[in-house]
């Protein structure tokens, strides 16, 4: 067995580019390098053709019309464009936005900005399994609500929200529905029409495409949606996003979408089988918990807490060999534990003890075997060193202790 180390299991952070994507991109750097907006010569025409073709590939993946795809520098920009763009465009209709506490920072931070400039935002709580409460959503709608923004699949837990039901509620009240689908597109079937989505953000580097490119889907029919541009300039992307198009990255993004469309079904089956095997093996350890709804979940993600062992310490046991993320405060720049896990109701101690696994196209069974063993060994070793584990084993009620804070 030829197991190459280190193993990469952090595909929710980013994915390696598929070699076929790289191959598609290469001619557009030094040979077909024209600016797609150069209307008057063949360098421009060739580049424009490549972009048009990529737009079709992207649109096909989500059952949209190519005209409904606005190309951006990534999902963060698409999130900003959707939320700020709708807020400005529909300001005569209202100024209230509804979102939820487990959104990505690109959405939450943008909502904070909206509040600063005078808008009002409702942050819905989620239930303990990570799903929003549909009745709460409907109750939160007012006559000033112009947008509901709820992510399709969560990046930390993999939990998939009830998108079609959310859309029904939005439509019933005439409110636009935007979803940040960065983790879902390319991994599970996402259909903007069947799902009733009005705006949607997604990104190249989460689906084996290049970094630095993404898209905002903006519906043109039933209803026709518009967004106020956040990047002013030459009027590119139908005036909704100015800036010279990153042709090689867009070509790569298109190819990545096409590959996902063709391989998604078989890949999802393979990944969820490996993920389940990994998860079930780790759940054999005592006091080990899966975070988030296990049924409504992306096929490649698992978020698991190992009680009485701290996440960064745990990762140190194997992070030379295995790449993962943790919800622990020590692994975040802010020293705050994962706000997503806190929103699920996890105590700080379990949030600090969590690991996130993101499997991907290039994950193999041998890698999973290696990972299961490495993690189990490290958890057992660290529990031997943990005063909390010792107290738990002795039957001490840790919640009853008064800790000496400093």
């Amino acid at each position, binding site marked *: 067995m030829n197991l190459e180390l280190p193993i990469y299991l952090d595909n929710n952070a980013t994915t390696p580019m598929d070699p076929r994507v790289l191959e598609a991109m290469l001619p557009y750097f030094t040979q077909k390098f024209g600016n797609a907006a150069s209307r008057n010569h063949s360098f421009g025409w060739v580049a424009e053709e490549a972009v048009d073709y990529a737009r079709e590939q992207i649109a096909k993946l989500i059952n949209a019309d190519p005209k409904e795809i606005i190309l951006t520098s990534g999902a963060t920009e698409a999130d900003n464009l959707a939320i700020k763009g709708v807020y400005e465009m529909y300001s005569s209709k209202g100024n209230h936005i509804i979102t939820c506490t487990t959104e990505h920072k690109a959405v939450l931070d943008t909502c904070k900005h909206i509040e600063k400039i005078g808008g009002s935002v409702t942050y819905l709580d989620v239930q303990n399994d990570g799903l929003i409460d549909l009745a709460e959503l409907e109750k939160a709608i007012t006559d000033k609500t112009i947008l509901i923004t709820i992510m399709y699949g969560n990046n930390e837990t993999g939990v998939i929200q009830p998108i079609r039901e959310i859309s029904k509620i939005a439509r019933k009240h005439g409110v636009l529905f935007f979803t940040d689908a960065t983790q879902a597109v390319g991994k599970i079937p996402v259909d903007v029409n069947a799902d009733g989505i009005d705006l949607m953000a997604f990104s190249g580097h989460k689906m084996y495409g290049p970094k630095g490119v993404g898209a905002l889907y903006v519906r043109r029919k039933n209803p026709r949606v518009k967004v106020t541009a956040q990047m002013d300039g030459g009027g590119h992307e139908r005036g909704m996003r100015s800036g010279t198009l990153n042709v090689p990255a867009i070509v790569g993004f298109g190819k990545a979408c096409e590959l996902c469309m063709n391989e998604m079904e078989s890949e999802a089956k393979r990944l969820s089988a490996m993920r389940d095997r990994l998860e079930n093996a780790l759940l054999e350890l005592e006091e080990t918990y899966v975070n988030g709804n296990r049924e409504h979940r992306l096929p490649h993600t698992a978020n698991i807490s190992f009680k009485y062992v*701290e996440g960064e310490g745990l990762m140190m046991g194997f992070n030379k060999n295995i790449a993962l993320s943790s919800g622990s*405060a020590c692994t975040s720049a802010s020293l705050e534990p994962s706000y997503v896990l806190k929103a699920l109701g996890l105590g700080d*101690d379990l949030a600090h003890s969590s690991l996130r696994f993101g499997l991907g196209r290039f994950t193999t069974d041998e890698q999973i075997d290696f990972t299961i063993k490495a993690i189990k060994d490290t958890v057992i070793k660290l529990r031997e060193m943990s*005063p909390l584990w010792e107290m738990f084993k002795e039957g001490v009620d840790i919640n009853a202790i008064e800790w000496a*804070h400093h």
Partner: protein
Amino acid sequence: MAYSEKVIDHYSNPKNVGTLDKAKANVGTGLVGAPECGDVMRLQIEVDEESGVIRDAKFKTFGCGSAIASSSLATEWLKGKTVEQALEIDNMDIVEELHLPPVKIHCSVLAEDAIKAAINDYRVKNGLPELVAEKKAH
């Protein structure tokens, strides 16, 4: 974040992991930190009653690599010192020895707190008053 060689060594080969009998009069136990902060250290010392020398020290820690290393190092330093000498151990000594980056300095502070808590526990058990820490600028 790159860990120093010493932190990695203490993590992979921790010194003095274990538990002393806290019922004994010459054992002092310090339990500091909190699960919500992601750092809990339990440090124990066994003091030779006649000489006042710490003849054994054990630790258990719930925390990151730097927290584990700080407490492991603390137990190494404590062994062979008198209780008075142990009080002089300053968190910055730990920071220097382990090359802790600024974001991990609080781990060394917790280790120093654990030492003082263990000593105070020993003192209280033996009829001596607790020492009140001077306010230090951190």
